[in-house]
């Protein structure tokens, strides 16, 4: 059996965040370049130019792309044949986060209690960790620091089956329209359809991590992604909400079977600082 040590986990998580917070993924850079060519608003083009300039400064000077270095969201796909050689996997992940946010001079944005104390935990822990057991002997870790401004624009709607395709479209378009300039457009729209309330929400979050330019394998969902992107870019919101023709860079939909009584739709909105980085151990 393959073994992975505590130290391997700490180092992997740490290096993922040190890079993810500073270096904008190549596909996102390309999408922003393309958007600059497509945007009709001069002010919108200026915003896109500044974002491109910003990602160069961040990378060259090892500075955070955005001051909101996010909630440390982590997806772990753990191969069933792999053994963790340690006593506390969650703590190992949190230690990786702790070290990255300290060494990277990243902002610590987590408060220990949401209602009463709201005291900063001072090391950006705990991370939000989503574990999944998968076949095989690999461990994949995805680090996806998520800013509060765009996460706050996320929604969940429990639609009726009779609301159907039109209901889903309306829900997604309204979410982006209502969010306006708040989540720092151009955004990536993650949509989770089906499952239960928590399943749809998780699918929506996973959907924003998909590589730009890739589409759902089911041609019907791929077509829906294209339709929604077209409709969203007609809204007029534009870069930073100042008005324009590029409001979203992509709409990514993930789906799951659902109950005969349900049609859950979750929308997770990812800001222009679409940061994520993965590693396979």
């Amino acid at each position, binding site marked *: 059996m393959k073994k992975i040590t505590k130290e391997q986990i700490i180092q992997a998580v740490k290096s993922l965040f040190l890079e993810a917070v500073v270096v904008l993924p190549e596909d996102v850079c390309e999408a922003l370049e393309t958007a600059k060519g497509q945007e*009709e*608003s001069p*002010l*919108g083009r200026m*915003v896109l130019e*500044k*974002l491109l*300039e*910003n990602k160069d*400064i*961040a990378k060259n*000077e090892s*500075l*955070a*792309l*955005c*001051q*909101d*270095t996010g909630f440390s969201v982590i997806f772990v796909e753990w191969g069933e044949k792999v053994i963790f050689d340690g006593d506390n996997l969650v703590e190992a992940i949190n230690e990786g986060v702790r070290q990255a946010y300290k060494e990277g*001079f*990243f*902002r*610590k*944005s987590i408060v220990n209690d949401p209602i009463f104390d*709201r005291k*900063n935990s*001072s090391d950006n822990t705990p991370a939000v960790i989503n574990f999944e057991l998968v076949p095989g002997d690999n461990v994949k870790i995805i680090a996806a620091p998520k800013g*509060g*401004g765009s996460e*706050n624009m996320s929604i969940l709607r429990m639609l009726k089956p009779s609301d159907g395709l039109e209901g889903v479209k309306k829900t997604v378009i309204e979410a982006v329209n209502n969010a*306006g*300039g*708040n*989540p*720092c457009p151009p955004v990536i729209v993650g949509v989770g359809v089906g499952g239960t309330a928590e399943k749809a929400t998780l699918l929506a979050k996973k959907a924003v991590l998909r590589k730009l330019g890739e589409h759902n394998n089911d041609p019907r969902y791929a077509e829906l992604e294209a339709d929604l992107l077209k409709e969203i870019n*007609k*809204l*007029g*919101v*534009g870069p*930073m*909400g*100042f*008005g*324009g*023709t590029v409001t979203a860079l992509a709409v990514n939909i993930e789906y799951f079977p659902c109950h005969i009584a349900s049609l859950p739709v979750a929308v997770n909105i990812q*800001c*222009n*600082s679409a940061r994520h980085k993965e590693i396979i151990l």
Partner: protein
Amino acid sequence: MVKKITTPLTEETIRDLKTGDMVEITGVIYTARDAAHKRLVELIEKGENLPFSLEGAVIYYVGPTPPKPGAVIGSAGPTTSYRMDKYAPLLVEKGLKGMIGKGQRSQDVRDAIIKNKAVYFASIGGAAALLSRHIKSAEIIAYEDLGPEAVRKLYVENFPAIVVNDIYGGDLYEEGKKRYKKS
């Protein structure tokens, strides 16, 4: 054309600012976001002094990353402004003249801007590394316990922003969306 303005803001400066104007701000501005706003408003309600004078002041909604050794500040872009809407009208009434953030404001804030002759600017969210270059000095003046949410006194040079809400009732988000909306 970019309008160069200096702080503290005067009524004369504010009269000249119109929705959609690009500006470059030079002078002292203060940082405050959610938790600091709550405390500032509590002080006003208790009739106590604030850690800085609101007269002509500009507040930047930002919680910067920590400075690296030798740096003035870390990355420092705007946070979403609507979370401060509950507190902003009172601050504007007490003399605050400018706010820098991102995203649309409530009707109460927009009314307070018109009534008290203030202005709301947006900066570019996601351009935090670039914006930090315009910040020449930074000093925590209150609420150090809040960490990134502490109140900082910044000196900025040619800090780029755009006028969203002016004293004439303009709103860049509404106007921009109307202009580019397609059926």
